[in-house]
């Protein structure tokens, strides 16, 4: 019997609380009828055959009852139902959006080999909070005066109008120094990157995979095609793989950035974003220390322009996270509130309908009595009368 009582845990707790003792008693009485040499095995088999299908059935009955009562309750209150549907839809949508963002910011690896060795460099003022883009002059000096990095490149974002065979299109794009794309470590799908020699000539463009597909129909002969960006002719020299993105998915093309001598004249003109890859065997901490020394030297060298200027070094993911963390945390908080609200709303219909079974039975009986009274008031009797009437009727029919 202990085995049977253990099996009873397969039933829903509410059912077990109501019928566990009776079930055990009835089962024990049933088993007393058994005899023979393999009674124990028969009892175990009987217990399994009894409990497993019925426990599943009771779970299904309970679920069906809850759904039916919830549906009835919601049908009676359309305004409430609409609110529940809207709130749940909002919750699901918000949850999906935040998950996508959190996945991108916190979970998914960056699409570059050894992305943990990629750093973002910023200018910071020791007297102020926050950090800024880098001036071309400081970028050039950091690059020349450090040895911690295998490569360092710079870029700035801009939007441009692309004109080719089809309609003009507004593009998010990046102008990058020739060092930038190679140091990310992803080779072009077709074609090549621009080089320092190309950069001097300018007017070259590397396409993202989506742009190549949408604008050029994935034409493998796109290399060498001429397009116009803001009126200036550019030659397509490469297409990046579908998995590649930099600095984010919105950027659809990369053109070469040429820093002419006049760009280095004003050390306070900060507009470049700088990415560097650590040399093998060098830690980011070593790079930080080296840049600290370089910054101090530049401050001494340019006391007016570089006063209090320090270098801020962040991992590429860290940098993304830093910028997005507050936003994501705020969204997560908002989503949590919405989910809690959804949970409350979704439970409400069940709790509205979730009266104890006997109360529902009484309600059914009351409804039945009311219906009978309305249909034939003279026939209305108390419950006991009806049972007695049936007895009389059945005896009568047997007698006849």
């Amino acid at each position, binding site marked *: 019997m202990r085995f049977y009582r253990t099996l009873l845990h397969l039933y829903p707790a509410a059912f077990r609380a109501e019928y566990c003792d009776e*079930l055990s008693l009835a089962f024990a009485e*049933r088993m007393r009828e058994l005899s023979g040499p393999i009674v124990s095995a028969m009892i175990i088999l009987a217990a399994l055959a009894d409990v497993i299908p019925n426990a599943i059935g*009771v779970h299904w009955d309970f679920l069906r009852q809850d759904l039916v009562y919830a549906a009835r309750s919601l049908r009676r209150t359309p305004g409430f139902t609409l609110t529940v549907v809207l709130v749940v839809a909002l919750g699901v949508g918000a949850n999906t959006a935040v998950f996508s963002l959190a996945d991108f910011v916190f979970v998914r690896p960056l699409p570059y080999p050894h992305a943990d060795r990629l750093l973002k460099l910023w200018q910071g003022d020791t007297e102020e909070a926050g950090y800024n883009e880098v001036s071309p002059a400081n970028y050039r000096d950091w690059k020349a005066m450090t040895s911690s990095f295998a490569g360092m490149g710079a870029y700035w974002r801009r939007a441009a109008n692309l004109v080719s065979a089809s309609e003009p299109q507004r593009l998010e794009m990046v102008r990058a120094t020739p060092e930038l794309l190679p140091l990310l470590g992803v080779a072009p799908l077709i074609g090549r990157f621009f080089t320092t020699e190309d950069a001097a000539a300018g007017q070259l463009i590397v396409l993202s995979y989506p742009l190549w597909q949408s604008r050029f129909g994935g034409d493998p002969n796109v290399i060498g095609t001429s397009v116009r960006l803001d009126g200036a002719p550019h030659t397509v020299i490469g297409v990046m793989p579908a998995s590649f993105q930099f600095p984010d998915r919105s950027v659809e093309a990369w053109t070469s950035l040429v820093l002419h001598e006049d760009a280095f004249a004003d050390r306070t003109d900060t507009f470049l974003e700088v990415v560097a890859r650590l040399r093998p065997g060098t830690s980011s901490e070593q790079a930080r220390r080296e840049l600290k020394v370089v910054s101090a030297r530049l401050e001494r060298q340019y006391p007016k322009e570089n006063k209090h200027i320090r270098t801020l070094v962040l991992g590429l993911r860290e940098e993304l996270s830093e910028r997005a963390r507050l936003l994501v945390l705020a969204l997560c908080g908002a989503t949590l509130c919405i989910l809690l609200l959804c949970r409350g709303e979704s439970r409400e219909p069940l709790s509205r309908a979730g009266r104890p079974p006997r109360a529902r039975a009484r309600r059914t009986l009351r409804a039945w009595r009311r219906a009978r009274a309305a249909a034939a008031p003279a026939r209305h009797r108390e419950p006991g009368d009806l049972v007695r009437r049936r007895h009389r009727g*059945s005896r009568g029919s047997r007698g006849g």
Partner: protein
Amino acid sequence: MNDRELVDELLPLPPATFHILLALLDEERHGYAIIQDIEARTQGELRMSAGTLYRSIARMVEQGLIAEVSKRRPAADDPRRRYYRLTPFGTAVARAEMRRLSELVRLARARGLKPETA
């Protein structure tokens, strides 16, 4: 919802439910007595398990077909036993099911179908 609709909503009854209603027609019974009554009435054809019985009882109490009896029991009876009785609504539903089954049988007879002989 009127009288007829409330009853018809539950038809057709599962065989186990109809047998339990029949078992409680003439007296209040506890679970095991219901099992024994059904087995006796069907000449051992239907041997209901405890699980099937109490799953049906739970549903029938929920539907208002039967109710637990709160009266005093014989002193020698096992205190774990609970007795059930038919409600007036349960009687009405049993009658409606009987009428439904009778009608089916009548229709079959009208088509010339005869019961299988043992």
